């Protein structure tokens, strides 16, 4: 009961911030919608030009856009929520309260889920209205795809936060560039087989590559690739454990070297 209250306390802090700042709310939905519009017209153009089945081409590309945005928004939701504490120089107060580090992680995760929903749901509705692409038509397996990509967003963000604890606010740029930098390896819009041979094992170490292979099979062939989902889930468990360990080590190091006292500097 008490941990839930503390977790809610940190969530309330951020929800109150959004209630008071409409630019922050607009920002949540702006990029997913822009991506959806650009890729929607692009996929229609290619489908008509190449003479391929338009529904499948549009489905693969727009499905890719929506699912990749899920990973991106989850990552940014988690990391930016932490950065808000750094920017407002409030981390000192948070860390001297009875809030445990794992409770802070739980609050960041919940806020990431809220921010992801606020970003991706409007883009999904737009995809259905403008391009007649209903992401729900992928089927119940969609939930597993989304969950795996959200978890990937969390652990990449946890890795970024660990680096900020270790290197200070100077590592902030990693928050913005880390996950977008992994996009070429995530095989969002093309199969992993397109990549050079030496790059393929690296791509396959990322859960996202397996999710998007699974998405293409579901949209193109109507097949559910449970093997890809198992790989994605297993890799997520591995990466999440590794970054959780990294976070714990860096948090303890920050308590030893005094970084928690001046992390925004």
């Amino acid at each position, binding site marked *: 009961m*008490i941990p839930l*209250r*503390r977790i*809610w*306390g*940190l969530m*309330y*802090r951020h929800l*109150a*911030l959004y209630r*008071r*700042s409409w630019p922050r709310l607009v920002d949540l939905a702006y990029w997913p919608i822009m991506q959806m519009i650009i890729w929607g017209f692009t996929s229609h153009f290619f489908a008509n030009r190449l003479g391929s089945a338009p529904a499948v081409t549009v489905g693969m590309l727009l499905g890719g856009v929506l699912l990749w945005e899920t990973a991106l928004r989850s990552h940014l939701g988690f990391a930016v929520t932490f950065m*808000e504490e750094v920017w*407002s*120089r*409030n981390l*000192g*107060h*948070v*860390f*001297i*309260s*009875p*809030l*445990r580090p794992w409770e802070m992680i739980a609050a960041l995760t919940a806020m990431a889920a809220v921010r992801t929903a606020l970003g991706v749901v409007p883009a999904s509705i737009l995809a259905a209205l403008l391009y007649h692409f209903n992401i729900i038509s992928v089927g119940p397996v969609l939930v597993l795809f989304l969950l795996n990509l959200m978890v990937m967003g969390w652990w990449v963000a946890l890795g970024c936060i660990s680096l900020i604890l270790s290197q200070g606010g100077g590592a902030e740029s990693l928050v913005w560039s880390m996950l977008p930098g992994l996009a070429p390896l995530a095989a969002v819009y093309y199969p992993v087989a397109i990549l050079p041979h030496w790059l393929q094992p690296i791509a396959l170490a990322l859960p996202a590559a397996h999710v998007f292979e699974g998405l293409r099979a579901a949209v193109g062939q109507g097949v559910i690739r449970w093997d890809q989902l198992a790989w994605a889930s297993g890799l997520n468990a591995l990466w999440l454990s590794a970054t959780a360990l990294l976070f714990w080590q860096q948090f*303890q190091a920050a*308590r*030893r*070297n*005094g970084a*928690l*006292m001046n992390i925004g500097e």
Partner: protein
Amino acid sequence: MTDAIHVESLTKRYRETLAVDDISFRVRPGETIGLLGGNGAGKTTTIAMLLGLLVPTAGRITVLGHDMARNRFAALAKMNFSSPYVALPARLSVAENLRVYGHLYNVRHIERRIAELAHELDLHGFLDRSAGKLSAGQKTRVALAKSLINRPELLLLDEPTASLDPDTGDLVRSWLERYRAESGCTVLLASHNMAEVERLCSHVLMMKQGRIVDRGTPSELLTRYNRVDLEEVFLDIARDRQAEIA
């Protein structure tokens, strides 16, 4: 009776720098103790270790009966901290900020507690204003309200009246005196304001270069250094005139 604070052989070293050098002290429940020293004396480092924000290199801290190395969260729930140098989220209103910390400290009947604090610290005029838009005096009162939200048994104050005009500073000091008398709260006060320390503290620890170089009640220190106020004692210690006095 268990000490409110028990510090034994506390040391903090950052590579080549010895920030706190083997200090020991006890604070009894209900006592107000002053931590005095110039810049770089080790006051902030000591407070950070008392709050569990910083891990000591050596030594042991027990706060309200809890070993800070093993069970710091039990102690943190019963203590709090205020400093004009640690901000509250500027975009949140005063009431929202207090609500956040009410949840983090598991305060029952938060709205009632906020109303009490608003009455005691005269926050009513700006409860709904963003914390970032307050004057220095208002920010200090809000920071104090935040530090009292959980009715702490131990209150750590780092220069609570810094940047306040004399009138507001006096109001805050009067309020602290009254609160301490009514609540029985233990207070550790770090300050550069010697008059404030003389007025509020029953004991004083004088720090210099990471060490406690003298201690006693304000009147003991004045007698020992043959001075009329703590500011002169402070200068004697800062300028190494202890040997001459002895």
